[in-house]
C-alpha cells in the first residue's frame, strides 16, 4: 500500500483523530494522530487485512520545545510498506497511551522515551527508567535539560 492509500483509509476510519497528513515532507511522509486514539489506530493497523503492519521498527521521543513528540516507525513484513506515525503532547502534561499491548517491543522503547524525555505512557505495565540509574532526576534529552551538579554526592560535570 502506498502512503496515500494508508492515510486515506486511516482518515476514513478515524476521521477527527487523524490530525495531519504530511505527504509532501522532504524525506519520509508522516501522519500526526491524536494521542488518545493511538491505541485504536495501532490495533487497526496491526489487525487490518489491508495493512498488516506487524512490526514496530522504532519508537522515538522528540522534544519540540514546548511539545513532546512520540514517533512510531512502523513496517509491514508481509506487505512491505512502511508508515511513520506521530503524536504530539504538551511538555507539561506529557501523557500518551501505551501501545505495549499491541506491539510488545514498545515496552522497552517506551521505557526509554520515558527515561530520556519524561513521556508518561499511560497503561504501561512497568514504566521504570531503563538506561539511567533508577534514582536519576530529570529527563536528559529534553532541550532545556541542565546537567545536575551532583549525583549521589558525586560531581557530574567533568
Amino acid at each position, binding site marked *: 500500500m502506498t502512503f496515500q492509500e494508508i492515510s486515506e483509509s486511516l482518515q476514513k476510519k478515524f476521521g477527527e483523530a487523524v490530525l495531519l497528513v504530511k505527504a509532501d515532507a522532504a524525506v519520509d511522509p508522516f501522519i500526526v494522530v491524536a494521542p488518545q486514539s493511538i491505541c485504536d489506530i495501532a490495533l487497526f493497523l496491526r489487525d487490518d487485512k489491508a495493512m498488516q503492519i506487524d512490526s*514496530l521498527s522504532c519508537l522515538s521521543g522528540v522534544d519540540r520545545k514546548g511539545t513532546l513528540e512520540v514517533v512510531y516507525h512502523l513496517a509491514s513484513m508481509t506487505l*512491505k510498506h512502511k508508515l511513520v506515525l506521530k503524536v504530539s503532547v504538551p511538555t507539561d502534561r506529557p501523557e500518551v497511551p501505551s501501545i505495549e499491548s499491541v506491539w510488545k517491543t514498545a515496552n522497552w522503547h517506551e521505557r526509554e522515551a520515558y527515561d530520556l524525555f519524561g513521556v508518561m505512557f499511560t497503561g504501561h505495565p512497568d514504566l521504570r527508567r*531503563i538506561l539511567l540509574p533508577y534514582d536519576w532526576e530529570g529527563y536528559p534529552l529534553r532541550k532545556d535539560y541542565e546537567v545536575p551538579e551532583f549525583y549521589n554526592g558525586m560531581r557530574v560535570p567533568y
Partner: protein
Amino acid sequence: MIETHHSQPATSRGTTLRTEEMIVNMGPQHPSTHGVLRLELVVDGEIVVDVIPHLGYLHRCFEKHAEQMSNYQQVVPYVDRMDYVSSMGNEFSYVVAAEKLLKIQVPERVEYIRVIMAELQRIASHQIAIGTYGIDIGAFTPFLLLFKDRERILDLFEEVCGARLLYNYFWIGGLSHDLPPGWVEKAKAFCEYLKPNIVELNGLLTYNKIFISRTANVGVLPKQVAINYACSGPMLRGSGVDWDLRRDDPYSVYHKIDWDVCVGRGEVGTVGDCWDRNIVRVHEMEQSLRIIEQALAQLPEGDVKAALPKRIMPVASEAYGRTEAPRGELGFYIISDGTGSPYRIKARGPSFVNLSVVTEISRGAMIADLVAILGSTDIVLGEVDR
C-alpha cells in the same frame, strides 16, 4: 487427629515439594552476560522463574552527544562505538540514514566498497558471536580458532583505514580512503582461505553432539512472538521468518548481487531454538563470502567521494534509515532543524530490541539454558545501552 492437608495432584515432575525461590544477580560482572548487563534472576533451584534485565551500565549518552555535534559527519566516530564489534555495520546504517536526509547520491564504487566492508564486518561479527557462544556452552577452542580468522579481517580493515576496531571509514557522501593497491587480491585470497574453516567450525562446534543437546529445543522463540517483539537479524531468521532488509528494503547495491537469505529450519530441534539462531549465523558467513566475491568482481573504477559542498545544510526534515547490521535491523532516525548540526538522532539498536525478548523465552529454563539463550541473542552492550 484430623488429616488437614489436602492431597495435591502430582505434577509431571512427580513432586509437590515447595521450595523457596532465590534471587540471584547475574552480572554486571559475570562471564557470560557479554558485557555489563545485569540480569536479576528469580530461581527455584536451577530453574529460572523470572528474569529481570537491568541495563544502562554502559550508557554513554550517544544521543545526547550526537546533538552537540556541529555537523553530521562528526557523529560517525560516536556511531562506531555503539556496537563495537561491528563498527562498519553501524557506520553503514548511519550514512544510509544521513544520506537519505541530506539527499546525497554516492558514486557506485563507494557503494560496492561499502558492501564489501559491511559483509567482511558481518563475518567478523558472527565469528565473535559464534565463538563466544561456544564459550557459553563450554567449548573454548572454537573461540580462539575463530579469533585467528577474525584477525585476518581486521588486518584487511587496518590496511584500508588504519584502524582495527573503530574505523571512521564510511563518510557521508563517500569513504575516508580508497582501497590501497593490491587490497582486492588480498580480500579474494581471504575468501578462499575462510571457506574450509567454516566447514571445520561446523565439525568442531555446530554439529557436535553435546552442543546440539545443549542448544536444540532450548529458548524456542516462536515466529509470532519474534515479530511482535520486532526481533531482527539472525534472531528473527532463526525463528523461520524469511526477512532480511538487504533484500526486503533494499539499500546500496545488494540488489545487483546474487545471494540467499538464511532461515532457521529446525534441523535438529524446533524452529526458533538456540541452535537455529546459531546456524543462521554460520550460513550467513557463507553468504557474506558470496556477496564479497561478487562485489569484488564487479567493483567499478571511480572516485570514492561524492562532489559535496563544503558545508552541508539540509532543509528542516527527518529521515529514518535502516540497514541489516550483523545483529539485525539497525536504524537511525535523524531530525534536522535546518542548521548544520543534527537536532535529534535516535538509534534503534538490534541488540536492545532482541534483548527485550529474553525474559519471554527463558522462563522455566535452567540457569545453564539461560546462558545459552542469552548467548544466542548475541547482544553487544555498547549498543543496548548506547
